[in-house]
């Protein structure tokens, strides 16, 4: 069953000069077709300005399509009465961890969402405990968010979304402002959500290493989906990716260069382990 689907989705915003006259119309999203199934781990890749964040905001009824339609759990976002249902269905985690924390204590921040949708107090406590445990932040429940590291703050933000029991979570570059350790923590938490809780995850990123866990990748450029498929399929097109200023993971790149130099490495290698395996196979046949 598809949780999010879009047909001919387009979004335009009008750029005005300083007198307020129309300066030009920017088509941030252009003719997007999407189909995301319940339980999927989808990655959306793209360079800055490719429209990936604009697309994310359509999944949570923060922005509405100028043309075309997007359905979230079968509900058309253009119908105003569906707005709160859509926001309950898809949770959203943003880039800057400081700007999405509302509470002064971790557990109060996680409770903010459930409080908004009118969950009884007793159940809020259960949900807060459960979701903090999923992201591994239960030990910090009484801490002040300001004192946590970036990765920890971002996990608290994820817990805040999980506590609303969404079917789907959209993460808009959740790791862009984090150090490598924080990035690892967040990605681990996100994968646990998908594997254990079976929540649909839509990860928007420009870090290639984070994409390899996805089972479907959409690559965006200039408001269009230019490529889709499994990470292996997408990363076997190194040249096309580089033409839209995206780089492939380092191991994939190395295998590619080797192939160009005449070593028969297979296409679409994603991890160092795979790389080593392929190399061993090669040396045994030679």
């Amino acid at each position, binding site marked *: 069953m598809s949780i999010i689907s879009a047909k001919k989705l387009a979004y335009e915003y009008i750029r005005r000069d300083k007198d307020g006259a129309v300066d030009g119309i920017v088509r941030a999203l252009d003719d997007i077709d999407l189909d995301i199934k319940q339980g999927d781990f989808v990655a959306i890749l793209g360079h800055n300005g490719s429209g990936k964040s604009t697309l994310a905001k359509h999944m949570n009824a923060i922005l509405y399509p100028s043309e075309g339609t997007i359905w979230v759990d079968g509900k058309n976002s253009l119908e105003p009465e569906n707005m709160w249902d859509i926001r309950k269905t898809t949770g959203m985690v943003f880039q800057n961890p400081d700007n999405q924390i509302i509470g*002064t204590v971790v557990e109060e921040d996680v409770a903010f*969402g459930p409080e*908004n949708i009118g969950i009884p107090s007793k159940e809020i406590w259960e949900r807060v405990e459960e979701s903090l445990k999923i992201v591994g932040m239960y030990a910090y429940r009484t801490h002040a968010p300001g004192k946590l590291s970036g990765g920890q703050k971002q996990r608290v933000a994820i817990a805040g979304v999980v506590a609303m029991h969404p079917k789907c979570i959209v993460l808009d570059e959740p790791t862009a402002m984090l150090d490598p350790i924080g990035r690892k923590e967040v990605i681990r938490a996100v994968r646990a959500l998908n594997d254990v809780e079976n929540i649909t995850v839509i990860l928007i990123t420009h870090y290639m290493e984070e994409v390899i866990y996805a089972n479907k990748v959409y690559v965006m450029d200039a408001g269009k989906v230019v490529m889709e498929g499994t990470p292996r399929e997408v990363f076997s097109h190194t040249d096309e990716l580089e033409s839209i200023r995206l780089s492939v993971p380092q191991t994939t790149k190395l295998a590619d260069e080797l192939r160009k130099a005449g070593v028969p490495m297979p296409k679409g290698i994603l991890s160092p382990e795979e790389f080593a395996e392929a190399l061993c196979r090669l040396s045994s046949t030679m």
Partner: protein
Amino acid sequence: MLRDITLGQYYPTDSVLHRLDPRVKLLGTIVFLLSLFLFQNFTGYIIATVFLVSMILLSRVPFSFMVRGLKAVVILLAITVLINLFATPGIPLVSFWKFTITKEGIRSAAFMMLRLIYLIIGSSIMTLTTTPKNLTDGMEKSLSPLSKIKVPVHEIAMMMSIALSFIPILLEETDKIMKAQMARGADFESGNLFKRIKNMVPLLVPLFISAFRRANDLALAMEARCYQGGNGRTKMKPLKYHLRDLAAYLILALYLAATIVLPRIPALKL
């Protein structure tokens, strides 16, 4: 440097006062502050002192923390005392050069000083024993009848608690911008007052821009988490009165009665 500023100076420990409902503490503080202005003789002050000392002991907050709040008003305190001391007409006691100290002057100076000190310690007991979140919750709940006459009580409380939680973030940001500007030769420390204010402009402009950006992001994040105002909202930690809160209200009523009645009994007039 800027991080030294503490606002909503909560002192985390476990005491009866910490566990009291914030509404009780709010009303208690107001009653105490009002009572300080009700009485004119020493009997009243004795009652207030007994009440304040027992609250200090109950709060289990080190006394030095409470005195800290007084430092900020030392000058104000000194001026008030001096004016009261010299400017009150009455029976002269000591007189030198152009100044005369009267009996009434000593009395009203002492009263004024005690009044101010009690005022500050009394209100700091509340902020020391209540988390900012609890405080705004308490305000929201006690002012909620006002929402019937279209006062946006929930919104005000929400704004206050968000403002409080953003103070450290903005302070950190100010520090960062300041250092960045200093690295490029900005001077925030020398020159006269006007020059210094002028030098603050390159600090304030980026700070305001970033504050607006943050506010925008936060509003988006709140909306994405289904925030739609106070209607239909539940609370993780709803305020509920316990037996100790009722007891506290009773003590408060007794205190108020005592401060009104006792100083008016002629035998107790001091």
